[in-house]
């Protein structure tokens, strides 16, 4: 990897990816507010944002990053190849650019959430991470400075979005590497696992007297313990530093998986419509 190659890739990618997830979050929130307004108008005769919630806005932002990383990785690989940059450098730059985009998205979510609460007149809306690591009001209840709590959740949401982006990168890298037939087979396998994996596995294990739910509960407890989540600690508060650290580690693992797939991948030009 060279510094010039990394910086060039990072600048190009950031230009492409920084605004999209943010605009998507804004668009989703604006659409939600509009619908709430219209519903309130139809029910009560006045256009207001009462009862507009913004729960799990952080998870939504993470989902956006996942989607956009899936969309953009192929373009980044091709553009890097077209301009004399190695796949490794492109991938590392992608991690950096998606991390930056995650931070921006997280900042937007952190600002939007209290604004929506304010205009809807409701309580502070709940982030998905609050369900896992304790609510913001809980930390402030324990005397923590509101600024510190907000920074804490900003960092956590950044890493959550980054992890989602890294997972998207890994998926996209697999599709980039595989030929057309392989992509179809992989897609079918994914769909089968998503829709039929649980019931099929449950039936198979039941015959052997094994309770799949118990195994899954143990698995999710293990995940919770690994990520320092509150509910396995028997507490209202989780270990946020452990959570952030593990999200970073898993994102790095996804990055390595993506690298293993793309390092020997032939460049795949995107098809042009009509050709």
């Amino acid at each position, binding site marked *: 990897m060279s510094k*010039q190659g990394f910086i060039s890739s990072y600048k190009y990618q950031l230009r492409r990816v920084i605004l999209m997830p943010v605009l998507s979050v804004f668009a989703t929130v604006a659409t939600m507010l509009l619908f709430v307004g219209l519903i309130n108008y139809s029910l009560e005769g006045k256009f207001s944002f009462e009862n507009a919630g913004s729960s799990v806005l952080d998870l939504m932002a993470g989902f956006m990053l996942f989607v956009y990383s899936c969309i953009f990785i192929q373009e980044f690989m091709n553009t890097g190849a*077209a301009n*004399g940059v190695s796949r490794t450098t492109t991938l590392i730059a992608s991690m950096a650019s998606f991390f930056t985009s995650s931070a921006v998205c997280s900042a937007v979510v952190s600002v939007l959430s209290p604004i929506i609460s304010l205009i809807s007149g409701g309580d502070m809306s709940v982030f998905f991470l609050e369900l896992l690591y304790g609510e913001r009001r809980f930390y402030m209840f324990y005397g923590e400075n509101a600024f510190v709590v907000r920074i804490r959740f900003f960092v956590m949401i950044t890493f959550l979005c980054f992890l989602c982006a890294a997972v998207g990168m890994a998926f996209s890298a697999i599709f980039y590497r595989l030929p057309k037939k392989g992509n179809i087979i992989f897609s079918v396998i994914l769909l089968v696992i998503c829709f039929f994996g649980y019931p099929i596995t449950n039936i198979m294990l039941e015959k052997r007297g094994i309770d799949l739910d118990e195994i899954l509960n143990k698995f999710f407890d293990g995940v919770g313990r690994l990520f320092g989540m509150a509910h396995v600690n028997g507490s209202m508060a989780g270990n946020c530093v452990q959570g952030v650290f593990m999200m970073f580690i898993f994102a790095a693992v996804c990055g390595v998986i993506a690298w293993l797939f793309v390092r020997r991948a032939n460049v795949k030009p995107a098809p*042009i419509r009509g050709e």
Partner: protein
Amino acid sequence: MSVIEIKNVSKSFGKNQALCDVTLTLQENCIYGLLGRNGAGKSTLMNIINNRIFADSGEILIDGVSNRENDKALGKLHMMSEHLLYAPALKVIDMFKAGACFYPEYDMEYALRLSEEYKLNTKAKLQKLSTGYRSVAKIINALACNAQVVFFDEPVLGLDANHRDMFYRQAIEKYNARPATFVISTHLIEEAAGMIERAVVIKDGKLLLDEDSETIRSMGYSVSGRASLVDEFTKGRDVMNEETLGGLKTAYIKGNRTQADIPSELEVQPLSLQTLFIHLTNS
């Protein structure tokens, strides 16, 4: 300045052997014509050099350093390929800006000036351009990047005669103003012959010829005149090709013409690159 060494490179796609043990050196500051019939392996070779696909065996060294996943080596190269590697929804101007991001010596002013000359709409999306204008956009990008080695894979694909002429002229101007290595792969050999300094011919994945233009020209000659006189002259000589039009005939003969005793009634011309190419790749 960069020297590219291609050492024993082989590549196959399934049962198809695209390249077979190709060894070649691309010297600095030279315009190469990379020639071959359809499916000969020209694009495969260029893609391997530019790290877009990987050789099954052999290595590519750029100034003594392997090109594989090596930014420092790859940063010296740029390839204008048949396929579009940028996002189709990207605008032309954004493609130039991307090039400027990656190549520190990218000349944006030059790119915009050429766009005006070609009447290329820089605000148009790449996917909305015709095949010809897409080639134009890629050509301009390649000429403006100021890389040390620039590969052109079918640069004139879809270009009209005027645009083709502009390309050849601008490529030579660029080369004279800022010497670099250009490697041009094209099927329109006659058109490009004037600018090619060294020809590399690939046939069935193997390197057939790697010579400079002077040597190629001295490899043979053509004689034209009355058919009977031409037939008389060509007896016992290595004739590559013949063309007959009414009572007139042109014969393409292999060998050094200065040594031949050519009758004054016959018109003698140096051998064209295209003729030699057809002869080499037909036999």
